[in-house]
C-alpha cells in the first residue's frame, strides 16, 4: 500500500509527499503550535499561515464563530510578515522531515511577485501557495481570484519571481471556476488548490449588527465540502496540473471523495481546529481503506469518479 505521490510533476525539481494529506493554511499556524497534541511530521506537507510583506494585526474581534455545519472566520490575515517567516520560522522548518509550503497574500500583483522573490531559495521553504482570495486594492477590492485575467497575472508574477513550485489556491466566490483554473494553469502554476472559503456573514439579531468584526467572513467546514468537491470534479478534466482538494474534510471518507473527484492531494483545515490530530487520523483511515480495498497506490483512485463506466456500482445498490 503506497500513499506517496509527486505533487508537482511539471516542475523540474518536483516534490514527493509521503502521503496526500496536507495541513491547510491558517489552521495549523507555523507548524509547531500543536506539537503537544500531534506528530506533525507524519503529514504529507504543512501550509503555513498566510504571509504578507509586512506584519498584519488582523481584524477586530470577534473573528470566528460556529455556523450550521461550518465555521465562519474573519481573521484578516494576521501574520508575522515574510521577513519574520524567513528569519524565525524557515530555519526550523529546514530541520523537519515534512515539507512546509508558504502561503502568500498580497494586495497588488507586484506584492505577490515580491513575496515570491523573497522566499525563493530560502532553506526550509518547499513551495509557495498563492492565496488569490485577497481583495485587489487596485480593482475596487474585488478578489483577484474572481477574474481569470487578474488571477493569471498573479500566477505569472509569482512564477516569474521564483524557482520554487507554485500552487495557486482558488476562490469559490466566482462564476466560472473552470475559466479561472485554466487561466492560472496556463500561467505557470504547478498545482491548484480548490478551494478557499466561501464568502458569508452572520447577523447578531440582539445587537442588530454583523457578528464578525470583519463584517463578512469565509465559510469553511462540512457545509463547504459538496461545493469544493464539485469544483474539483469540474476542473479535473480542464487542466493538466494536479489538484489539491480543500473544504470540509474531517474523515478519510471525506478525503476519498476529493481524491475520487480528481484531487491528487487534500488539505485539512477547520478539522484541525476542532481536533489537532484530525489530519493524522485521515492518513490512518486512508491507509486502512486502501488495504481493505486492495488498492496498491493512492494515485490509482485519483479522478476515478470521472469515468463513464458505472461498473463500480454494485447491482443491488440501485434497488
Amino acid at each position, binding site marked *: 500500500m503506497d500513499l506517496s505521490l509527486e505533487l508537482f510533476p511539471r516542475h523540474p525539481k518536483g516534490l514527493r509527499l509521503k502521503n496526500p494529506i496536507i495541513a491547510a493554511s491558517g*489552521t495549523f499556524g507555523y507548524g509547531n*503550535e*500543536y506539537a503537544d497534541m500531534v506528530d506533525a511530521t507524519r503529514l504529507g506537507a504543512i501550509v503555513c499561515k498566510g504571509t504578507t510583506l509586512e506584519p498584519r*494585526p488582523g481584524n*477586530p474581534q470577534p*473573528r*470566528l*464563530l*460556529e455556523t450550521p455545519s*461550518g465555521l465562519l472566520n474573519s481573521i484578516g490575515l494576521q501574520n508575522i510578515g515574510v521577513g519574520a517567516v524567513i528569519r524565525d520560522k524557515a530555519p526550523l522548518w529546514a530541520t523537519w522531515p515534512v515539507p512546509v509550503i508558504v502561503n502568500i497574500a498580497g494586495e497588488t500583483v507586484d506584492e505577490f511577485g515580491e513575496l515570491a522573490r523573497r522566499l525563493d531559495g530560502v532553506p526550509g521553504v518547499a513551495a509557495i501557495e498563492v492565496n488569490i482570495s485577497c481583495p485587489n486594492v487596485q480593482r475596487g477590492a474585488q478578489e483577484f481570484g474572481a477574474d481569470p485575467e487578474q488571477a493569471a497575472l498573479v500566477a505569472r508574477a509569482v512564477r516569474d519571481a521564483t524557482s520554487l513550485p507554485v500552487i495557486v489556491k482558488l476562490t469559490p466566490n466566482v462564476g466560472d471556476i473552470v475559466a479561472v483554473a485554466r487561466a492560472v494553469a496556463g500561467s505557470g502554476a504547478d498545482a491548484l488548490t480548490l478551494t478557499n472559503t466561501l464568502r458569508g456573514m452572520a447577523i447578531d439579531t440582539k445587537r442588530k449588527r454583523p457578528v464578525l468584526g470583519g463584517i463578512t467572513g469565509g465559510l469553511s467546514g462540512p457545509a463547504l465540502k459538496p461545493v469544493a468537491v464539485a469544483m474539483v470534479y469540474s476542473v479535473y478534466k480542464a487542466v493538466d496540473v494536479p489538484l489539491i482538494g480543500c473544504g470540509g474534510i474531517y474523515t478519510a471518507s471525506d478525503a476519498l471523495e476529493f481524491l475520487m473527484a480528481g484531487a491528487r492531494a487534500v488539505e485539512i483545515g477547520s478539522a484541525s481546529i476542532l481536533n489537532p490530530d484530525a489530519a493524522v487520523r485521515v492518513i490512518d483511515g486512508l491507509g486502512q481503506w486502501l488495504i481493505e480495498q486492495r488498492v496498491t497506490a493512492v494515485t490509482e483512485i485519483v479522478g476515478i469518479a470521472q469515468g463513464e463506466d458505472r461498473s463500480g456500482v454494485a447491482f443491488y445498490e440501485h434497488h
Partner: protein
Amino acid sequence: MKRITAPVISNRSLMPETYLLEVDAPPIAAEARPGQFCMVHCGEGYFLRRPLSIHRAADGLAFWLRVVGRGSAALAGLHPGDKVDIIGPLGNGYSVRPGARSLLLVAGGMGAAPLAFLARKALREERSVTLVIGGRTRTQIYPVEMLPAGLHVVVVTEDGSQGEKGLLTDFLPGLVRNADQIFSCGPVAMYRAMRQIVVDRPVQVSMEAWMGCGMGACYACTTLTRQGPKQVCRDGPVFDIQDILWDEI
C-alpha cells in the same frame, strides 16, 4: 497539556442558566493552575470546542459555565457517565508573587469561576484573600456558601438584592489599599473602569475571547497589547492590565 475523554461525574444547575460541570480527568487536574482553561468538545455536530476556565482541580476537574449559546447548552445537558473530550490545561494562568501577603480578587459575574480556584490555592499558601463579586442581581452571584472558609467575601449587586448595592467598582477604592496584588476576571467594561481606580497596584486580568484552536494556531482570539498582537489562548488569557491597549480593542 493533555487530551482526555473524561466521564462526567456530576452536572448541576447552581443558579438560573449556570451549571457546575464536574469531570474525571486526573491528568489535566494535576497540571492545572488557577486562571488556566480547557477546550471542551460539545459533541457530534459541533465544529468548535468551547473554552471553559478551570473552576476547581481537586476531587475532579470542575467548570462553572453559563448557557450563552448552542455549545454551552449542549454542555449543560451532559449527564453523569457521559463522556466529554477535553484538551487542557491551556494558557498561562495567574501569577502570584511569592512575597504577596494580601490578595484582592475582583470577579464580575461568571468571573468568580477561576478566582474561586485562585482563592483556594492562595488560602492554602496562608495568604490573606479578599474576593469581591459583582453582578446585576443576586441570581448572578456565585453561591457564597460554596466558597472556601477563611476567604473574606464582599458581594455587590446593582439592584441591592444581595450584599452591597451599586457597582463593584464603587467599592474598589476602599479594598485596594491593603492589596499587594490584584487579580480579576470579568467583562472588558469592568477592566476599563478598574484601570481608573487601581493605578498604583499590580493587576492581572483574564481576557475573554471567542477562540478556535486554544493553542495559538488559528489566530482567532487575538488581542492588542503594548507588545503587539497577542493570542489570548496561548499568550494569555491572563495579562497585566497595563499591557492591554484598552482604547483599541
